[in-house]
């Protein structure tokens, strides 16, 4: 045992908390080391062993604080790399030293957190850039595809992605099927009809007859045919109805141009109003709007 170890266990000796082996070692050291014997005698003379900082005050008058030498061994102690009796000595010190106890607690917290600094997430393009810089055979599209895949992976893994995707899909469907100028206004009704028809057909299926797959395939083919021919006819009918309205708007613009050239301000207001009316009519021309010439056009016609 050396003096450092003696000082670490001195408190235990004074309070009679050491086991026989340690006590034996301490007493042997006391006989061999005059300086430590003086420290021990000082401690004994102080008498009041219940004073919490007795050892510190005595060490302060003799060897000075030993905390700095303890600190250097705390790492090994926490990792369990100290010999058993040295570990006990250090434990004894830590139990009685508030400063070292606080430091040990902080070291434990740091040990828990440090491994979380081992990795740092790279940006989405990093892998593709490395591959482009290293692989000789990496063609441009190959790298571009990898980069695109990385970007999509990042997007797909975002928690808000399902909500955003369903919102965007809804907006697109509404624009395509439920706005005044929608190209496929009858799509929802037809889709519903197909689904209803499939349901009815399913109810009538004879188990020994046509298989469910056959029914679905035939119905799907019909639906596709109906939808595409319906879309063509609707677009054609829509254009036929829109053309006179566009002609009117064109006429209004031409009239306004004439008025501007001839500085005929009296005629300007009614012409501007007429233009406004015609533009509004053009915008509001829904599928069921009457023809500008007065002939009602039913777009509920079933082209199929």
């Amino acid at each position: 045992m050396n003096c450092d170890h003696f000082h670490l266990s001195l408190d235990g000796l004074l309070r009679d908390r050491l086991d026989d082996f340690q006590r034996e070692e301490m007493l042997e050291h006391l006989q061999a080391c005059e300086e430590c014997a003086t420290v021990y005698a000082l401690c004994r003379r102080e008498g009041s062993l219940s004073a919490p900082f007795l050892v510190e005050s005595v060490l302060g008058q003799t060897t000075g604080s030993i905390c700095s030498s303890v600190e250097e061994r705390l790492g090994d102690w926490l990792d369990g790399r100290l010999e058993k009796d040295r570990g006990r000595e250090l434990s004894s010190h830590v139990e009685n030293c508030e400063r070292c106890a606080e430091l040990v607690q902080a070291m434990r917290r740091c040990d828990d957190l440090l491994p979380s600094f081992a990795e740092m997430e790279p940006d989405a393009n990093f892998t593709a850039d490395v591959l482009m810089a290293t692989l000789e055979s990496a063609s441009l599209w190959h790298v571009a595809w990898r980069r695109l895949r990385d970007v999509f992976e990042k997007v797909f893994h975002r928690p808000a992605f399902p909500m955003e995707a369903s919102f965007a899909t809804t907006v697109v469907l509404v624009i395509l099927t439920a706005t005044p100028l929608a190209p496929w206004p009858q799509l929802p009704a037809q889709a519903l009809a197909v689904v209803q028809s499939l349901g009815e057909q399913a109810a009538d299926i004879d188990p020994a007859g046509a298989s469910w797959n056959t029914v679905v395939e035939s119905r799907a083919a019909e639906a596709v045919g109906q939808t595409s021919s319906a879309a063509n006819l609707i677009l054609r009918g829509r254009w036929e109805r829109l053309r006179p309205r566009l002609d009117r708007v064109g006429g209004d613009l031409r009239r306004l141009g004439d008025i501007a050239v001839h500085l005929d301000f009296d005629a300007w207001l009614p012409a501007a109003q007429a233009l406004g009316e015609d533009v509004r009519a053009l915008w509001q021309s829904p599928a069921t709007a009457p023809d500008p010439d007065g002939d009602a056009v039913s777009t509920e016609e079933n082209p199929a």
Partner: protein
Amino acid sequence: MNEELQDLVLRCQSGDELAWETLVRRHQARVLAVAYHYVRSTEEARDVAQEVFIRIYRSLPTFQAAESFLPWMIRITRSCSIDHIRRRKARPPAQDIAADEVFDLSDDGAMPDQLAEHASDRRLLGRALAGLTELHREILLLKEIQGLPLLEVARMLNIPVGTAKSRSNRARAELAREFLALQGEEGSR
């Protein structure tokens, strides 16, 4: 080196591009973190990490399977980072503490208490690390953060094992003291 990694390295050595991509994906976060600890700038760490992989790719044919891949990779990362720091010496140094933004250490008031405490401690620890001396930071990075054995750390830093051990103990105590001081500052606000 575990068998899976060994197999991956062998496949890379035989020119398997898919294996190379897997190797890059698996280790890029670690290389980036090590590079960041040296250069202290996200952008520069990215450049260094890219350079590291290029160097690894070119050195793979001569890499001996008996050697551990991870220490070899970290050694290359360290070497590239130091080269990079030497090259940029003429330029002004990067900002001192960017750890908050890089490691996503910002406070999040909406988190549960435990997570918020973890994030707060992690942020303080990032600052405490930045406040250490270069050698202590490096020892902690290699031994405590990247988990390299003491022998490897000593070899990398070119110091005796005993010195590496005592320095490591001192670095841990210094980090804890710095951490406590920052906690005290934070608490007194």
